[in-house]
Structure formats: structure tokens, C-alpha cells
């Protein structure tokens, strides 16, 4: 209680400061605080660079060095000379009242989108820093109170500003600030939730903060419908880069619902090999084996060795997950499906031909329905299933998690709200 009181009394509420009188060194009121200007330098806490005050009909900027003291309800200037030119925002500056309070922010540690009800400043050394953001609804309602009560900090649910990723004010260059380091620690599924909760410009900004390969991972976690909409909303080059980096089966899910023209434009920007792969997958309708398989498979011939196989797995691992290796004969037809465990069980010099043998795996054709996929997958007792064409040549692999996704998709609409999963904590 005491701690909270002392913390509260050493914090300045930005919302409370707005409208506070500004006094010159002779303690005469000369104007009122309109906004607090901060600069995002390298540090985690933004530093107050000055105040915007209204003097008569002008909005003037007062540099923080000319401010002698910021009290809870008033500001004391240390110098009588005030620059009367109108305020103009400089690069890297943000206005706390206009651009941050009541806007969406990212709470990186909590992995959620919040709206700032208030911001708190602390006086440390000779400078003022933004140290906390209040996100409680109570603090929001406090701002409706008369000025005297409004300025009292009520640190209810205050987040350390170090855990906040703010967004650029519209029109201000976004990439001036480094993305929060914590963003990289978030799981793709959490980032996907964040993207869904944000407003449109903020969503685009967050997406551009992420390295393309993590952004692609995040998109894989989103509903195909939302991915489709998102792809249509970002610049074509960025969309193509994302599509190229996504797992092919997930990318296809999103591409499928794009209009023909948009899809053609998008695929034209995707590297040729990848585009061809995606076009092949697109030919299969949704909900059948071809629609949920990935075309990235590791292929072995019978005369290769386990060592060769391991090398191939390592190479493929850089791009996508490997669940098994298909073994083909001279005509390219499927002979067997080896699991990673099979590779571990045998000496590196063993020939693949010596490892294969019954029981041979069940397979499906690309036009197989979901039921058949499930049946074969269960029959194999493995975690994936090989898809073969009419000539019995392997063309893809269906992973168990994609089957789970497909099954869930066909089931989600019929669930009661209390059965729905809450946020994973």
C-alpha cells in the first residue's frame, strides 16, 4: 500500500498534465499544456523532449531544458523566453496525448493488444522518461473526473514501458524505431492473435517489423481467409515474399480464395520454382488429399545409402519440416516410406535397398477424400502419409497436423462458446 502510494506520487500522469497551467519563473500563468513530446532514441524508455503549450491562440514548443519543474498539476518554466513559432513535428517525435493515449499498443510481454488509458512519466536524473502505460478501464474512467482528481496517478494495471511496442503515428516514418526485441520471442500463434486484434495500419506495421521468415510462420497460424485478406492488403512484393516462404500447403489455402487476377499477379512475383509448385497444388480442390499435402518431399533411390539420406534430410530441414523419406525405383514409382527412426536404426553405410521391406505403407491419390486420408494415416500408424499419382509416383506428403487442421475446419462452426479454447496461457 505504502509502496503503491509512493510510486503513485512520484509518477506524473500524462492525461492529468494535459490542460495544466504553465507558469513562467515569476509564477505567472502564461499558457496551458497541450501535449507532451517524446523522442524514441535507442533506449527502451522514450525521453520527454519538450512540451507543446497553448499561449493565446498559438501552439508553441517548449524544450525540456527550459522546463524547471513538472508538478502534478502545473508546469514551471525556467526561462522567460518562449519560442512563439508554431510546433512542427520532427523526425522520430511522437505526441503522447495525440498519438499514443487511447491508441492501440502492443504489450509484447503479455502478447496482447492494449489501448493506453494513461501514460506515466518519471523524473530520473535531470530528465523525464515515459516509464509506464496504464491499460485499466478504471484509469480510463478517471480521466472523466474534474482536473484535480484526474491528475492523481492510479497505478492499477500499469505495464512497464519496456515491454511496449508502440506504433508509428500515421504519416510518420515507421522504421525509425527498432522493433521490440521481445517480438522475436513470441510464438507464431501468439503473433497471429496479435495481428488479428490490431487495426489495419497497425497490423501492416507489425507485419513489416517481423523478419519475412517469421512473418511467414505467423501467417501459417492464421485462418486462410484472414491470410488471403492480409495478402491483398500488403504491397505485392511483400505478399509474394511471404507466400514464397510459407509452407506450400498453407500458402495454397490462402491463394485458393484469391481472385484469379490477384493470384496471377502474386504468383508472377514469386520465384519460378516455388510458383510452379504452388500452381500444381492449386489444381487440387480443397478438402481432398491434394489440397492439404505439401510437395516438399525427400526422395531416395534404392541404391543410395543411409548417409546420403541423412545429408538430404539435413539439406531439406533448412526449408521445411521432414517427416519421412520416400524411396523410389528406377521408374520413379514409390517403393517404401522411411521414417527418421529408420535412419537412426541403421549404420550410415547401409544401402537404402536393404532397409526397405514390408509392411509397405498405405498411400492415397491426390483426389482422395478426407475420410480416406484419415483411414490410411491410422492404418500406417505413422505421422504422415505419402500421396501418389496414377503412375504410383510420389508427389507429396500429408502431415498429421494438417489432417488435424482440416478436420477442425470442418467442425468449428458447431461448437458451443464455452467449449471454445481460451487464450493459451
Amino acid at each position: 500500500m505504502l509502496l503503491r502510494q509512493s510510486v503513485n506520487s512520484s509518477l506524473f500522469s500524462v492525461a492529468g498534465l494535459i490542460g495544466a497551467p504553465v507558469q513562467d519563473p515569476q509564477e505567472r500563468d502564461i499558457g496551458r499544456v497541450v501535449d507532451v513530446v517524446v523522442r524514441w532514441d535507442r533506449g527502451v524508455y522514450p525521453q520527454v523532449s519538450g512540451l507543446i503549450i497553448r499561449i493565446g491562440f498559438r501552439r508553441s514548443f517548449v524544450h525540456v531544458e527550459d522546463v524547471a519543474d513538472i508538478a502534478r498539476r502545473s508546469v514551471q518554466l525556467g526561462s522567460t523566453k518562449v519560442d512563439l513559432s508554431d510546433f512542427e513535428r520532427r523526425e522520430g517525435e511522437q505526441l503522447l496525448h495525440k498519438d499514443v493515449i487511447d491508441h492501440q499498443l502492443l504489450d509484447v510481454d503479455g502478447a496482447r493488444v492494449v489501448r493506453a488509458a494513461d501514460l506515466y512519466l518519471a523524473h530520473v536524473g535531470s530528465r523525464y522518461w515515459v516509464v509506464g502505460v496504464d491499460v485499466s478501464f478504471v484509469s480510463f474512467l478517471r480521466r472523466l473526473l474534474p482536473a484535480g482528481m484526474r491528475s492523481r496517478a492510479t497505478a492499477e494495471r500499469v505495464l512497464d514501458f519496456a515491454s511496449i511496442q508502440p506504433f508509428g503515428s500515421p504519416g510518420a516514418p515507421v522504421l525509425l524505431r527498432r522493433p521490440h526485441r521481445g517480438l522475436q520471442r513470441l510464438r507464431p500463434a501468439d503473433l497471429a492473435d496479435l495481428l488479428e486484434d490490431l487495426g489495419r495500419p497497425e497490423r501492416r506495421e507489425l507485419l513489416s517489423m517481423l523478419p519475412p521468415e517469421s512473418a511467414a510462420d505467423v501467417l501459417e497460424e492464421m485462418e486462410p481467409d484472414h491470410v488471403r485478406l492480409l495478402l491483398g492488403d500488403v504491397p505485392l512484393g511483400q505478399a509474394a515474399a511471404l507466400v514464397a516462404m510459407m509452407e506450400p500447403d498453407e500458402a495454397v489455402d490462402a491463394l485458393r480464395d484469391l481472385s484469379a487476377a490477384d493470384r496471377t499477379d502474386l504468383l508472377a512475383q514469386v520465384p519460378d520454382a516455388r510458383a510452379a509448385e504452388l500452381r500444381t497444388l492449386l489444381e487440387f480442390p480443397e478438402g481432398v488429399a491434394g489440397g492439404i499435402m505439401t510437395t516438399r518431399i525427400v526422395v531416395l533411390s534404392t541404391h543410395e545409402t543411409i548417409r546420403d539420406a541423412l545429408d538430404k534430410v539435413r539439406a531439406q530441414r533448412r526449408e521445411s519440416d521432414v517427416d519421412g523419406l520416400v524411396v523410389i525405383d528406377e521408374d520413379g514409382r514409390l517403393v517404401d516410406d522411411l521414417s527418421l527412426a529408420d535412419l537412426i536404426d541403421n549404420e550410415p553405410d547401409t544401402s537404402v535397398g536393404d532397409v526397405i521391406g514390408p509392411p509397405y505403407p498405405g498411400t492415397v491419390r491426390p483426389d482422395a477424400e478426407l475420410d480416406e486420408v484419415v483411414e490410411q494415416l491410422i492404418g500406417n500408424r505413422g505421422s504422415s502419409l505419402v500421396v501418389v499419382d496414377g503412375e504410383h509416383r510420389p508427389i507429396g506428403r500429408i502431415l498429421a497436423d494438417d489432417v488435424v487442421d482440416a478436420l477442425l475446419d470442418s467442425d468449428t462452426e458447431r461448437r458451443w462458446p464455452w467449449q471454445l479454447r481460451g487464450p493459451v496461457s
Partner: protein
Amino acid sequence: MNEHQQILDPTASPAGDGVENAPVQARRSLRRIQIATLLGVLGPGLIAGLSDDDPAGITTYSVLGTKYGYQLLWVLTISTAALVLFQSLGARIGVVTGQGLAGLIRQKFGAWSAVVAILALLLANIGTTAAEFAGIAAGFELFGISRHFSVPVTAVLVSMLVLRGGFKGIERILLVLSAIFICYVAAGVLAHPDWGAAFKGLIVPTMPVTRDAVVIATATLGTTLAPWGLAFIQSYAVDKRLTTKSLPYLRIDVITGALLTGVIGFFVVVSCAATLHAKGLSINDAADAAAALEPLAGTLAKDLFAIGLIGAALLAASILPLSTAYSVSDLTGSPAALDDDLRSAPLFYGTFALVTVVGVALVLIPGAPLVAILVLTQVLNAVLLLPLLWFMYGIARDRELMGAYVAGRRIASAYLVAIAIIAICILSLGYLSLRP
């Protein structure tokens, strides 16, 4: 090796069947997809528009037609134009900013504006929900079913549908339900109206300068352009994460919905004008209108009118609690949606329950001043429109928020004209009410 082949693939067939079919399949799925895109967004605008023809709306239109015949039909023309204008704007704001109305008002206009607007919206929506359940009660009573049965049952049914099926599930039901509005068209035709006089009334603005006439004109504007409809269409666009690519489809949907709203309103007015007005009768609500229609236009017309009333009420009663819950939780900064569970979104489900329960209670509690509440609600809705439309106008003109989709000067002046008309109505209503 060939033995393996047989074992592995008992269904092996001659080469290439899947591949040869592919181009045809691709073409077919393309066409399907474009229709699917349209169907994917078709609905919300239609529902938001048509649910403005709720019992409050039908009552207002009935009174307009019964008291003034075809004379005030032009008010409906203006209301419909304003509805087209602002529903499209709501959809556009939702799509472009990706934020709900409450959150945007908070962001742009500050804490006070947001709290007052949403509090007023909450009160107005509770009152409107009561009006919907009153409509359900009246509609079923015309068929001899007690309100103590019909109201609780429909309330539970509607809540379950919304909460269980999600909006996607109920949307289809709502669209089917909205076909019930054909009833009004049929009832209108059965009443054999004077079409010439009706069309003249639509275009030529004349009006008796009495308080009652101004009241009914204001109420028509307020009920057609309901605040909650505007909030709903925006949050729908946000919730679906629609982007500017879907905007053309969404606009078709919204405009169709708004125009249909006007058309149905027209037939309600016309059927009352041709019968009740011609005989010099007077009515208090839509159920009166339905009952009064019977001797004049036949039992079929009465039944159609009553069924339309019930359908309209169900439609609006499904959306109101949902839309209110969304707006309130949007204000706190953490917009919730139907896929959140009870524990993580207590405010969302709490508001939903509050709106539904109070709405039902007002209809069922004996001696509750229902009529007074309904009248107050109408006034509140109309008054609430002014700040709400002003906020929407401000957002539409904000280049930082709307970017390339900022409202140009021409469309902005159309918004201003509409706002001015509503302001004039409300001011003259206030003046005429206070004048001794």
C-alpha cells in the same frame, strides 16, 4: 517391383486422369470463388439495413401512413438516402481502419466523447431491444399466443443461436428470415393503394407544420438510420477483417440493404395510407395496424403484417445484444468477439446478458412503463444520431485514419447536408415540444 506396385496401389489406373481434368477444374473453381467472394460479404449490409425495419420502424411507418397518408412519403426518401450514405460510410471506416466505432471515437475524440456516446448507445439499445421483444409479444398475440410464452422462448432461442452458431451460423437464418419482409410488399399490394398519389408523395416534399408531423418525420429519420445499425456494420467489417479489396462487394451489399429498407418502409406506409388513413382511423402501434387492416384488406393482409412484424423483431433482437456488447468491450480497448470464452471476455458477455435480460424484463414486468420507454428510446436514438454521425464525419475526413479513402469534398458535403437535416428536425422538435 511390380508386385509391390500392386500391393501398394490396388486402385492403380491408366495414367494421368487427375492431370487431364485439372484445367477444367481450375476454371470451375475460379467462377465459384468470385461468387463466393460476393456471398462471403453479402449479408451484413442486407441484415443491418433490413433490421432497421424493426417493430419500432414498422410502427413509425404505420403511424406515418395512417395519419398523413401519402403526404410524408418523401421523408422516407430522404431517410433512405441518408441510410445509403452512412451505412456505406460505416462499412468503409471499418474496412479501412480495422477498428470499431467506439475505439475510434476514443482515439480521435477522447475519453469523454467515447464514454458518453457508448453509454447513450447502451441505453438506447436496451430500449430498442425492449421494443423488439414488445414487437414479438404483439405479433404473437395477434395469433393468440401469450407474451409470457413467446418472449422468453424467443429470447432464449435467439441468444443460443447467436452464442452457439457464431454470427456466421445465424447469418443464414437471418437472411432467410428477412425474406419475411416480402409480407409487407404483399400486404401493401393487397391494400390497393393509389399508386399515383404514392409516387407523388415520394418526391414532392409538403408538410403540415404541426408538432405531430415533425415528431413523426424525426422518428422516421431516427428509426431508419438507427445508431446501432451504424455501429453494427462497422464492427462486422472489423470482425471479418475485411480489407479494401472487399469494399466494392460490401458496398453493393450495404446499398442493396438500405434500398430494400426504404422499399419495405414504402409498402408499410402505402398499405396503411390506402386503408386506415382513407377511413380516417388512428393507431398507436404496428399491432394496431395489423388488426385494423383485417376488415379493410382481409385476414391475409393482417396475417402477413403480423408475420412480418415477428420476423423483423427476431432479426433485430439477434443483432442488438451482439452489437452492443461489441461496442462496449471495444471502448475498454480490448474488443472481444464470439470466439472468446466467458472468462476472458466478461464485459462482452455481461453486456450481452444485460441487454437481453433487461429488454425482456421491460416487456414482461406488469406495469412497466413500456410505452414511455419506447417513445424515449426513439427520441434518444434520434438525438444520439447527431453526435454519432458527426463523429463518423470527422473520422471520414481524417486523412491520417482514412489515408487514400478519406472522404472527398463532394461526398463530405452530402454527409453535412444529411446531418443538417437531422439537426433541423431535432431542433424543431425540441422547439415545438417546449412551445406552450
